[in-house]
């Protein structure tokens, strides 16, 4: 671009008037040469950078800086008002020695186990049904119905289900009473609260699992099924077992990974429906972090817990990835 000495008037650099500047022009020339040496088209590369800058600023301000601050804060005692005081590893030791932390971790894993496998199995099963020829006509309507809860705000979902599950005035207990079943305390009972949240969370998230599975199933070429039929596969179950399920594995892996991260960081649905109660039965780890920070004003401790949670997530996702790649490679 610059070899002929002519300036391309439409280039990004020209629009920014970089050519009209002395020092800057030299710098730009150097930058441009380096890009060329690496085999890039400088004009395209610079345009690319310019497009990326707004998002990059957003990521730096709202993700990278908060992550760094959180990590740093975990070594301080800080209440949001007084200046932070360095305490070394004290917050981490305090968090790991607190039985409520372990209880919260247990509750979070309980939520994970109670929601993710059900959503995967139900999502896949419904997707195989809805991609069947018999459901071709009502598919879009049914899909909208299933997906609708996913776009409803958590607060609305929470209040809706709290009303349905209210022990004294709720519709669910009323219906149960019609068939002679004694009222259950649902979200208010330490034993029933978490399973009730499983129901609410699965209802809310199922649409997302379903849409991704349907897309994955629809993208499988028919030739696979034809080849399988020639190889002796004759029933629908065998088709699902030997063709569909293995071929949607990347989607399953994606859903498992995202579902795992989202389950470990669950907050909204629990905050709205039970607030962590009854008797800490649904106090998930992020709710504990929130309480430590905003109710007890222990931001350092809350940050330490966040760092530990992120570490757990990274390790778990890494293992998931290792497992997935080893399966793909047939090891």
């Amino acid at each position, binding site marked *: 671009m610059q070899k002929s000495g002519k300036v391309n008037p439409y280039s990004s650099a020209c629009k920014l008037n970089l050519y009209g500047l002395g020092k800057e022009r030299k710098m730009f020339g150097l930058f441009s040469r380096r890009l060329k040496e690496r085999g890039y088209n400088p004009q395209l590369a610079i345009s690319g950078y310019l497009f990326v800058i707004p998002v990059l600023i957003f990521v730096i301000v709202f993700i990278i800086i908060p992550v760094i601050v959180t990590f740093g804060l975990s070594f301080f*005692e800080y*209440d*949001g*008002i*007084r200046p932070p*005081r360095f305490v070394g590893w004290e917050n981490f030791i305090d968090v790991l020695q607190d039985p409520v932390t372990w209880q919260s971790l247990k509750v979070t894993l309980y939520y994970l186990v109670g929601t993710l496998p059900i959503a995967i199995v139900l999502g896949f099963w419904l997707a195989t049904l809805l991609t069947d020829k018999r459901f071709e006509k009502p598919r879009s309507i049914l899909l909208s119905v299933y997906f609708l809860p996913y776009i409803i705000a958590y607060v609305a979902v929470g209040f809706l289900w*709290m009303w349905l599950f*209210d*022990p*004294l*005035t709720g519709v669910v207990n009323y219906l149960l*009473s019609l068939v002679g079943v*004694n*009222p259950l*305390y649902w*979200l*208010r*009972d*330490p034993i029933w609260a978490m399973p009730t949240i499983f129901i609410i969370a699965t209802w809310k998230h199922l649409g997302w699992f379903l849409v991704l599975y349907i897309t994955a199933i629809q993208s499988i070429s028919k030739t696979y099924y034809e080849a399988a039929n020639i190889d002796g596969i004759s029933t629908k179950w065998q088709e699902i077992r030997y063709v569909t399920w293995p071929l949607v594995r990347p989607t399953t892996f994606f859903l498992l990974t995202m579902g795992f991260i989202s389950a470990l960081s669950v907050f909204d649905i629990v905050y709205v429906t039970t*607030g*962590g*109660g*009854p*008797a*800490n*039965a649904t*106090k998930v780890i992020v709710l504990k972090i929130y*309480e430590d920070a*905003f*109710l*007890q*004003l222990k931001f350092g401790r809350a940050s330490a817990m966040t760092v530990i949670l992120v570490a757990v997530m990274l390790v778990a996702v890494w293992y998931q990835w290792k497992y997935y790649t080893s399966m793909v490679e047939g090891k």
Partner: protein
Amino acid sequence: MFFKKRSFEFLMLVVLVVLVSGLAIAQEEKIQLSVWGMPWEDAIYTQYAIPQFEEQYPNIKVEFLRFENYWDILLTRHAGGNAPDVQRNLDENYGSMRLRGALLPLTEYVEGPDGMSLDDFHPVALDAITKDGEIWALPQDLSPRNGLYYNMKMFDEAGIPYPTADWTVEQMADVAQKLTMGERPRVERYGISWADRQGLLWFIYAFGGDIWAEDGKKCVIDSEECLKGVNFALDLIYEYGAAPSYVEVTPEAMEDLFKAEKVAMFIGGGWNIPAITRDVPDLEFGVAPMPLVNGERTTILGQCIFEMSSQTKHPDAAWKLIKHLVSPQALTDYWQRTWVAAPSRLSLIKDPEIFENIIGIPGHVPAITDPEEFERKLGWMRDIILNGEFTTAHVGDFYTELYEVHLRDALELLAGPRRGDVKAILEEVAAKTNKDIEGFYKGQ
């Protein structure tokens, strides 16, 4: 030459105007006032208090802020060095802010040349916001946390006279049992319910307990007197079978239970009265003072207060605003329009022309025009305040830790599907709160 001279004069005039307006802008102070509450309550500030203030002080402009998640945002703004100059708060919450240096004491301003007399405020109420010889805020209201709401139709049908000021707690329990219909788990109607931990605190203080000792530096919610009160509350649930347990109804739904006529009596705060009157206009109800325990009456009293941030750059202007917000005019508007809590000035409560004139906010808060209805719903509030039958002893620097975290976590253990071991549970609550208190002072 003429034009030149005129141009010069014109130029000088422009310069003068710019200088004067620049000076005026420089002299104008901007301060922020933050509140929480329902959106329609904004009118109290935006249509009355702030315009009146700005008319009185033309050089001070007030930016009005109402936050959702009020305390989270207040804290975040403190952390960002951007705390509102004047903050509405609850007396129960101000201690944690004061301890951390987020507030400026007001004593110097109260006693200064632009000060004001505090004689019109109740000394017990002021006591809750006075610490280390300093007054840290001024009260907007006196808000009784417990009144005994009763459904008149249910009492009439059962042929039971309405609760009166000379009721005892045993009478209350007895009537609650009589008005209960059905047995757990199939109860059609409960005799009594209470909201959240506020109700539980009433039982504690009514039976002679106190949750704090050693000037608020120790939690003693596990003391014998406290256990006595909590045990009486649990008796109402499990022995009398007259009240729902904490697993049967959420604290938020307690008011709804009364509105839906699923409960005959309800221990609620003063702020529930306008809400119930508005939402269920046909519901005939009254509110009586809480019953006597061992011949004495007590009511938990909270206050909305106005405090000044230690980050304010305009303390004089902020003081002027606080002083205005607790002026007779501002408090009269607050009471007559929202009537959620009695005004903090005793002279306003004593004046029937002010106190009994309930205007409301059209479309949001109903008015009261019938003196009988006023007396039935709000007379108790005036009586307990003027008779001094209330306490603010529950206000402590570590109230949030106790009330919002440890006691809340223990409620369903205390009064869940089964009656909990009260002593063991409250000992654990006290131990956890005391650990937080020790941790705070250790870190200082």
